């Protein structure tokens, strides 16, 4: 990794040049600026789910407010829903009440875009946004969910917000935000075969640590990023928050335009042509100045796993966990606490280690390409007897496509079954909880203590490593 922290002379509290892609999109959305304070930013698209919105709607009620621009909010139930029997009433009364509240809010506030359980466009908020064409280059996008950074793959400023901010957006279509610093991370070279965009992201986070990009908005660039499909780019941008970044974005190109074109909410006809011409201008200028620049060689990246309890604690699958000597003194207590939770020893190798669960899904890796990779690997093989596998598509559209491509038959022949869409075991709000002490190889985004259930031990990985673990019952090089 090479670092170049640029010293930029301040100019009346602002930096001298603002020619990055981030700056262009940000500047196009500034409604007003508060002196010595945040910027009032206009939001083009707001995504909304059942868990972080009820208190915001209550806030509107308490103030006697309407939703200012209802058509700019997309509502989908995803976080707290079962992934089986979605056609039946939700068993847990508190979860059912939360979903009923979501429905009531949609109705009472006349929200025109609302996808409840079982709707053909229902799914994880960051999967359905792009797949239905809501997500378009140049937009500002927010959601009460930190993985909103996913949408940055289309060249948008997209970031997670809290519930107070959800209320602000519902009430005014605006938000007050302090302008973050800019960082560019360039991946030169090509990824090796069998190395996924998830591996690239886990590698990057392991280098930057879990707070290494805090305060920054990241632009991803370089040959390895350009070569990626939209879904691969979404995986990278999705994980921006795991190194603390406010968000991550990628300049739109032909790959982006081809993906967006023809989707339901994408511009059509003459409007498409006009928008396309504008979208083609959305890139950082050649002389753009970033507050920080990092460069990696993509060809050095290998399949990755995590060994600890934050996404920055990652390593190559064949590596050993760092020893206490390799960890700085101040971080040693936290490091040891983390390994104690995971039941691992400093210096231990994890290759060959027996695992109990495999989770394929989430806004990070729950798209059709992830299912293709997984199915292709397990084709003709059998799921290991000691492994419980949960395969959870990111949306109903993804599930439908799995069936259309016959991937369900391949997976079933190998001993797997496909569940109904939702966030599922990524945050385990529903019944999809990994039991205490069990090891899960998970394609999701967080390995925090208890994230996948109280006491659950999460090993983050890409879909190929997950597939290899599912058939061997062990941590295995795919």
């Amino acid at each position, binding site marked *: 990794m090479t670092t170049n922290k640029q010293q930029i002379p301040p100019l009346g509290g602002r930096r001298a040049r603002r020619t990055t892609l981030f700056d262009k999109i940000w500047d196009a959305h500034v409604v007003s600026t508060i002196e010595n304070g945040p910027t009032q930013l206009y939001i083009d698209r707001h995504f909304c789910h059942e868990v972080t919105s009820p208190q915001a709607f209550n806030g509107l009620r308490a103030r006697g407010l309407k939703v200012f621009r209802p058509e700019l909010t997309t509502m989908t139930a995803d976080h707290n829903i079962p992934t089986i029997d979605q056609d039946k009433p939700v068993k847990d009364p508190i979860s059912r009440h939360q979903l009923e509240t979501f429905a009531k809010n949609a109705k009472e506030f006349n929200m025109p875009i609302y996808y409840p359980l079982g709707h053909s466009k229902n799914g994880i908020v960051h999967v359905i946004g792009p797949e239905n064409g809501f997500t378009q280059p140049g937009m500002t996008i927010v959601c009460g969910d930190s993985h909103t950074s996913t949408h940055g793959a289309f060249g948008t400023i997209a970031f997670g917000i809290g519930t107070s901010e959800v209320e602000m957006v519902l009430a005014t279509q605006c938000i007050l935000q302090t302008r973050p610093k800019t960082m560019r991370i360039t991946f030169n070279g090509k990824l090796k075969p069998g190395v996924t965009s998830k591996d690239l992201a886990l590698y990057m986070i392991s280098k930057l640590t879990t707070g290494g990009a805090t305060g920054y908005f990241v632009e991803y660039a370089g040959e390895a990023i350009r070569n990626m499909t939209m879904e691969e780019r979404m995986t990278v941008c999705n994980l921006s928050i795991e190194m603390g970044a406010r968000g991550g974005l990628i300049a739109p190109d032909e790959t982006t335009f081809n993906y967006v074109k023809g989707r339901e909410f994408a511009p059509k006809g003459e409007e498409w042509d006009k928008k396309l011409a504008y979208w083609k201008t959305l890139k950082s200028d050649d002389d753009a100045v970033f507050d920080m620049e990092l460069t990696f060689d993509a060809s050095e990246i290998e399949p990755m796993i995590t060994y600890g309890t934050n996404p*920055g604690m990652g390593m190559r699958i064949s590596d050993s966990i760092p020893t206490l000597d390799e960890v700085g003194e101040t971080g040693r207590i936290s490091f040891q606490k983390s390994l104690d939770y995971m039941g691992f020893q400093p210096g231990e190798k994890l290759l060959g280690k027996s695992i109990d669960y495999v989770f394929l899904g989430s806004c990070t890796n729950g798209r059709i390409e992830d299912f293709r990779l997984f199915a292709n690997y397990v084709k003709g093989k059998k799921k290991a007897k000691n492994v419980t596998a949960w395969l959870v598509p990111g949306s109903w559209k993804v599930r439908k496509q799995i069936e259309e491509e016959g991937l369900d038959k391949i997976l079933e022949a190998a001993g797997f079954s496909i569940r109904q869409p939702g966030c599922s075991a990524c945050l385990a709000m529903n019944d999809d909880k990994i039991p205490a002490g069990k090891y899960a190889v998970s394609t999701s985004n967080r390995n925090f203590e208890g994230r996948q259930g109280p006491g659950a031990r999460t090993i983050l990985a890409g879909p190929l490593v997950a597939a290899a673990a599912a058939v061997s019952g062990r941590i295995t090089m795919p």
Partner: protein
Amino acid sequence: MEKFKTITSSVVPLPIENVDTDQIIPARFLKATDKEGFGDNLFADWRYQKDGTPKSDFVLNNPTYAGSILVAGKNFGSGSSREHAAWAIGGYGFKVVVSSFFADIFKNNALNNGILPVVVSPEFLNDIFKAVKKDPKTTLTVNLQDQVITNNANKAGETFEINAYKKECLLNGLDDIDYLLSKKELIEEFERKRSPLNPPRGTLGECK
């Protein structure tokens, strides 16, 4: 929102780094549709056994430590954007969280709930932990008006940053929504004037 006043209080030390919001309030407690009661489940998995009895080795269960100031290791509040984390911290009774580094979203959420995140230098943080270890009755004074935090054990003070707007909001008990609602005309003007090429408005097929 309550007006923020100068606080002098003993502290609850949590010298753990990278405390993520899943630890502050685990996801299974996010099923509520109001903001009440989250304080009871603050740090639930560190604080309680499976059967709900308190874990005696966790700081919130140690009667030696109390106060309205939480002092935590660096990178506090990383991970999920859940504002429930701020509601849990506020609900428990904390008014201030001190650390050498905060995650962005948590910082915003705290401020939007009248909780002040105070960023101090790693040395200052370490001195607090040391002083509290020596004498759990050690107090800190947090003066938002002057932007000064004082460790009353050694009388050492440090200034802290906060943007002028947020400071005014906290001191006067105002929130961002009040401000934004006062700008409605400006927002409508922005919608009218912005480039027709870069707004999604009017482009949504079924919602026109």
